[in-house]
């Protein structure tokens, strides 16, 4: 009897130890694997001409009412395709309430904007144009302006078979943004078998990320985002807090919820959180370590973490290992027309 018990125990232990693949990957609910191929909507296939047109539109300040603001103003390629300031400054110096998220890998996001009010990249691309604080233009007027520029008109004819439309503008910018995808990060290379790709500190950080630091439940999947919405309490102690997702859905359960951002290339896009209130990754980790800001809708998984100084540093090192190469995009030449002036950031205004 004893021998049989020991044999069964030993056999099971060996089986489990010898078959890590069966224990580790298959069927897991949360898996942070490499990025899949870019999802492209059937009604907006990627073409080189469309991406080129989208790049011009992305950098062109003439999409704004006073020709001062382009997409690149707030989603600057030189600062991780995001805004290095806590919140955005739009036309006439108006200051918005949220930090611009990165364009990198936005192609994979099921929801756009911090509150997820747009489902498609095409919809997101034209949203800021008629936002009174951001670009302050009307869709009708921007279409009129672009159709008055021969170079744009020709390209829209070639790409879409007609004049510029707001739908075409959105599709072209979205196509360009779909080309801004990060390549393999050290983390991906580690997963592919390069054991030297991540430092011991990064590996310790990975285990913390997936354990004691409680990051994975929300930051899971290839994007390191479950693409859901959560209330982690940011800004909820203010007299008039930004209610995030609630403003779009009007569901009381959504008060204070914001989209879970991707963590890929996160080291390149300070400051952090929807209001840009945390300057560094370590600051963000400190925020989580405190358990967030108490409020009635605080996510039940927000809890004090008791991370040590070394554990926090290891987490930062791991997050830095999620940085992959991003296509280098030069500011394109623009079709000439009215309202084009030099942009100190390298584009046109």
């Amino acid at each position: 009897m004893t021998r049989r018990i020991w044999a069964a125990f030993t056999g099971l232990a060996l089986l489990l130890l010898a078959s890590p693949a069966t224990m580790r990957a298959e069927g897991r609910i949360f898996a942070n694997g490499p990025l899949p191929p870019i999802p492209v909507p059937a009604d907006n296939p990627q073409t080189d001409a469309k991406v080129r047109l989208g790049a011009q539109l992305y950098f062109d300040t003439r999409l704004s009412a006073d020709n001062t603001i382009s997409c690149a103003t707030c989603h600057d390629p030189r600062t991780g395709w995001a805004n290095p300031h806590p919140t955005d400054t739009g036309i006439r110096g108006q200051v918005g309430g949220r930090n611009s998220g990165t364009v990198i890998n936005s192609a994979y996001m099921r929801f756009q904007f911090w509150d997820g009010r747009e489902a498609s990249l095409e919809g997101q691309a034209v949203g800021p144009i008629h936002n009174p604080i951001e670009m302050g233009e009307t869709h009708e007027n921007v279409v009129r302006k672009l159709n008055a520029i021969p170079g744009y008109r020709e390209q829209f004819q070639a790409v879409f078979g007609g004049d510029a439309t707001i739908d075409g503008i959105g599709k072209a910018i979205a196509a360009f943004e779909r080309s801004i995808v990060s390549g393999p990060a050290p983390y991906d290379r580690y997963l592919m078998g390069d054991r030297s790709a991540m430092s011991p500190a990064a590996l310790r950080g990975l285990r913390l990320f997936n354990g004691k630091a409680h990051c994975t439940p929300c930051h899971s999947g290839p994007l390191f985002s479950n693409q859901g919405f959560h209330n982690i309490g940011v800004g909820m102690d203010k007299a008039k807090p930004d209610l995030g997702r609630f403003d779009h859905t009007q569901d009381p359960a959504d008060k204070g919820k914001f989209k879970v951002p991707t963590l890929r290339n996160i080291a390149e896009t300070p400051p952090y959180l929807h209001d840009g209130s945390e300057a560094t990754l370590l600051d963000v980790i400190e925020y989580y370590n405190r358990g967030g800001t108490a409020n009635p809708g605080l996510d039940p998984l927000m809890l004090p973490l008791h991370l040590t100084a070394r554990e926090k540093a290891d987490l930062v090192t791991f997050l830095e290992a999620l940085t992959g190469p991003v296509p280098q995009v030069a500011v394109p030449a623009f079709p000439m027309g009215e309202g084009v002036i030099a942009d100190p950031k390298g584009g046109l205004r």
Partner: protein
Amino acid sequence: MRNRIVLAGLVLSGAAGLLLPEQAAGVPVFARKYGFECTMCHSSMPRLNDFGQRYRMNGYQLPDLEHLEKTVLESPAPVALRTSAGFTGTQYSEDAQLPAESDLRLNGLDLLSAGQLGRDIGYLLVYVPQIAEARGVAAQDGSLEMASIVFSKLGSSSLNVRVGRFEPAYLPFSVKRQLSATPYEVYAAAFPEGIALAETQTGVEISGYGPSRFQYAAGLVEGGPTLRAIDAPGDVYLRLATVIGAGEGQTAGHRLGVTGYVGRARPTEKFDVSRSPVGFYRIGVDASLNLGVANLALQYLMARDDQALWDDDGEVSYAGGFGELTLQPRVDLVCFARVDYLDAPVIANRDVTRLTAGGRFYAVDNVALHAELSHRTEKAVVEDQDDLAETFVTARVDFAF
């Protein structure tokens, strides 16, 4: 020979744990299902952290992420195995007239499965196979230790119903997930043939959160084995608790609780069915205080039993409790020290005191090297009896595959 095999197994397992950290990490049942490290839910396996406690209270679903769960029909039902192996020794005082015991052995084995049967319907099964006493292997009775279904978010987001055999919520400090190998004396105490609080119960329990972070749990359970089927269910309980600060009081926040348990049992007298069931109750207060990496667990419990349950004419009440300090300076190291006492004049006319200290080092999340020393004394409260003492020591490896 078998001792050598056990020793070799320990060495090999320890080596495997140390050499194969990636493979071994996070393999137990829930961690494997989600792809988490064990430390997602355990401050130090098997002790739950606040995250794990909320997960358990939510019916083995991640709160607010229930839509991501997979049922047993959508993914294989995860199964885990838990056991420990190593040295245990017990030495008794001379007056106990018991021989010292020591062995290098496998200490218990259980199989566990848990998951989702459907949206907001979770299950937990713990099966303990019967093992006969043998050299190198500790005996254990076979049983279905736990088999419960949890219906979550019934009617409101904070009402859960647990049905079946489970560890009831009236225990503020779980005996199934305690770090120490020695029992909480006050939870283990019971009248003859009665049910100890430490035992799992069969019945139904509701639990959840009320306003202002107030927690509640109430249950109707079968109670002790001295009741016949027609008597059961016999016992009810109510627990109320609140947490000051963020957390669940496991590793963050300060939890204060009060528990009441009222039961009926048939006086044993060889299970004389002609005797009617009589009553007993337990009232306890508890606190779990967290300061940084330290947790202080405090429990005080009063018990009063109908004297017929003891076949005794004396005062049938007792009180006891414990204070346990746990320190976890690192994620892979935890130390604990505990004082138990049981002021129990009726129970063999002895007051019980236990002093326990130990530590666990996690070679990987699911393989713990455990060392513990515990000294228990029974102080006679009548003149013609001797004090008894026992010293328990263990050094072993705990596994959860």
